[in-house]
């Protein structure tokens, strides 16, 4: 393997680990809001790692540039989407889970 393929493999593996961790968190966390922590955060880093990792095997600079643009776009939109979803839940009156019962 060439050195750039090794770098890409490392980035992809890291991205997969974070993505998998996020999915496990999504299943294990107690309520809707907590689950969004897992989903919203790991998403942004995992996709950045995967897309940036692909830059090392891209055939020309045009493809690399596009990968960077997509990464930046997702880094801006991911937290905004997370916020939109939580706000919708909040407006709908969904209560958050607390240790030992809700006191809200």
């Amino acid at each position: 393997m060439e050195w750039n393929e090794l770098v890409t493999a490392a980035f992809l593996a890291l991205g997969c680990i974070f993505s998998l961790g996020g999915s496990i968190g999504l299943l294990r966390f107690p309520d809707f809001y907590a689950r969004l922590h897992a989903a919203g955060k790991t998403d942004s880093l995992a996709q950045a790692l995967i897309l940036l990792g692909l830059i090392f095997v891209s055939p020309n600079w045009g493809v690399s540039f596009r990968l960077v643009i997509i990464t930046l776009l997702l880094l801006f939109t991911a937290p905004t989407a997370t916020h939109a979803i939580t706000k919708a839940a909040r407006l709908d009156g969904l209560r958050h889970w607390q240790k030992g019962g809700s006191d809200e």
Partner: protein
Amino acid sequence: MRYITFVLALCGFYALLSGQFHNTFLMAVGAGCIALIVFLSARMALVDEESYPGNGVILRALFYAPYLVWQVILSNIDVLKRALSPALPVAPRMVEIPYSTRTAFGTVTFANSITLTPGTVTVEVGEDTMLIHALTAEAAEGVKDGSMEAQVKRLEGTK
């Protein structure tokens, strides 16, 4: 001034994405599209303080970005640790925190940055407070100490 930057940004974006420098026709079409976009944006009054806060911000964003990336990495490791820990150490809570960013751009950056920092998600942005959902008590304290707000205000240029 804003329009000059806007046109330059569109030109750069088109040139880099198409990469067809040798094709005169495609370059002419690009110029036509840019002219149309600028005309429509001007008519809709889209190029204002909110959509483009100034050149200084772009420069300062270069200093803010590494800080934010580091926060994102910390927050991911935090989620990973909690998700994989058998005891599932979370104690979620809602906290209200005051904020004092002055521009729309700064407020949005602050809200999104809170979402990206370890253990906190911005739920609601009010007039002068934000409602934060925190996974743990420490995460809530981390936002309250104001270090991130100071960073955002430096980015805004109000501090």
